[in-house]
């Protein structure tokens, strides 16, 4: 049986972060929010990052944010990215506070730290969904 080496590597989905990856699949970005201190956190974990409470729920976030940092990857590290390179990868800061690893759906030369973004999704044939934020036209927050 031949292995398809062009398959994009999959995220490690486990009991702690399954709620996050499921929310991406539904195109309804959700993070854990603490019932005691009210704060969101990422990456997923069984206890609040800020007060260690175990009272929390998955809550949908606004999907609005800004570009905190980015790179444009030229090196082909994996055959699945040969066609895409050079491709952007980014850290996006959500209005609610947490930062997330994501990609941005625009030409690499248009990327600017601080640019306003709104959430988008990329459903991959490998069976999972990634965050692909979109620039908000004319916006800088």
């Amino acid at each position: 049986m031949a292995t398809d080496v062009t398959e994009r590597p999959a995220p490690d989905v486990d009991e702690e972060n399954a709620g996050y990856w499921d929310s991406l699949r539904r195109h309804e970005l959700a993070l854990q929010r603490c019932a005691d201190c009210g704060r969101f956190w990422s990456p997923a974990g069984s206890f609040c990052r800020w007060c260690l409470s175990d009272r929390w729920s998955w809550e949908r976030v606004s999907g609005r944010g800004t570009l905190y940092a980015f790179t444009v990857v030229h090196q082909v590290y994996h055959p699945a990215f040969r066609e895409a390179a050079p491709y952007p990868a980014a850290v996006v800061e959500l209005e609610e506070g947490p930062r997330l690893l994501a990609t941005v759906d625009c030409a690499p030369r248009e990327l600017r730290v601080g640019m306003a973004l709104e959430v988008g999704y990329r459903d991959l044939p490998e069976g999972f969904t990634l965050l692909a934020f979109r620039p908000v036209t004319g916006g800088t927050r």
Partner: protein
Amino acid sequence: MNPRGRYAVVGVGNTAYGKLAGRSAMSLSVEAVRNALADAGLRPADVDAVLTKAPTSNFTMLWSAQVAQAVGIVPQVTATLDQAGASNIGLVGYAMWCIETGQCHTAVIVYGDNPATGSRATYARPRGEGAAYGMFGVPPWYALIAQRHMHEYGTTSEQLGAVAVACRKHAAMNPGAQFQSPITLEDHHASRFVAEPLRLLDCCPISDGAAAIVVTSAERASGMRKPPVYVLGIGQGHPAWDVPYRSTLTTSGAATSGPMAFRMAGITPADVDVAQLYDCFTIVPIVTLEDYGFCAKGEGGAFVEQGRIALGGALPLNTSGGLLGETGMPGMQLIVEGVRQMRGECGGRQVPDARICVVSGQGGVMTTHATLVLGKEVP
């Protein structure tokens, strides 16, 4: 009690660096230990602790115990520390504590790996969130840091290039360095992007090789084959959280580690004659110089220009070539060079009258940081 000057490095040794096909991590480690013991004038039986950082490319349980066996030492203490590129300095601290508390008297600390030609088991099957977004290995993560530093402080690619030019200049003066040819700023600018804003010449190579040091008490050190090089200060600071979740990308653990070590040593940056700062990427020494207080935050880019960090400049940096020029090994070579500079053994690349050297180690993606202040004497 201030440990300043109570411990010393009495032996250093290393192998060749580069592509060493057919050499295992163990074989390289044993050669480095043999060379460090010969340098110290010691036999294996004189050493009672074997401390290691596990090979990055093939993480192995109880690695330090296996190294002890291979060098024929039945030790009192073995330990492997997982602070990635900060581990070697972290292990100096562990050696100091074991000696202070009477658990051992003389420790050999060794790192060896063969990622260039041997197993790359750690990287064999990429997966996880980073890989899903195309963030493989280390360079794209440091690219986020470099880009953010450029955004916040106006740091330029030419300033990153100045670090690479200085390191390669020094490597060309070191017959043991992997890279023997100097480069220019134009070479740096012409090199391809790996992950913007980092170019190929902003990145250290992946190298085979090993290096080792021998640490003992100042009392035992006096009268050994080589003059002791004293540990004046040591510190660490570990931001720990993954890059996306950290409060800042432009300040490293050096901001706490450096002042801790400098305070212990009773010095300020102005007292430092030569620096060996971890340089897996050109942005790293720039951030470290700022966080150590050699310049204000954000002025690291300007600091490294105008030849200031080259031999003959105000603060010669990475005089053996560092990770960028001597070998991509994660940090032990920097301690070895620091010791040789304090002994005055560096020939054409010797910093005249060097008495104090600061060495840094950094692991992960600015995840860990450690600082070592070495002295020719105890001031």
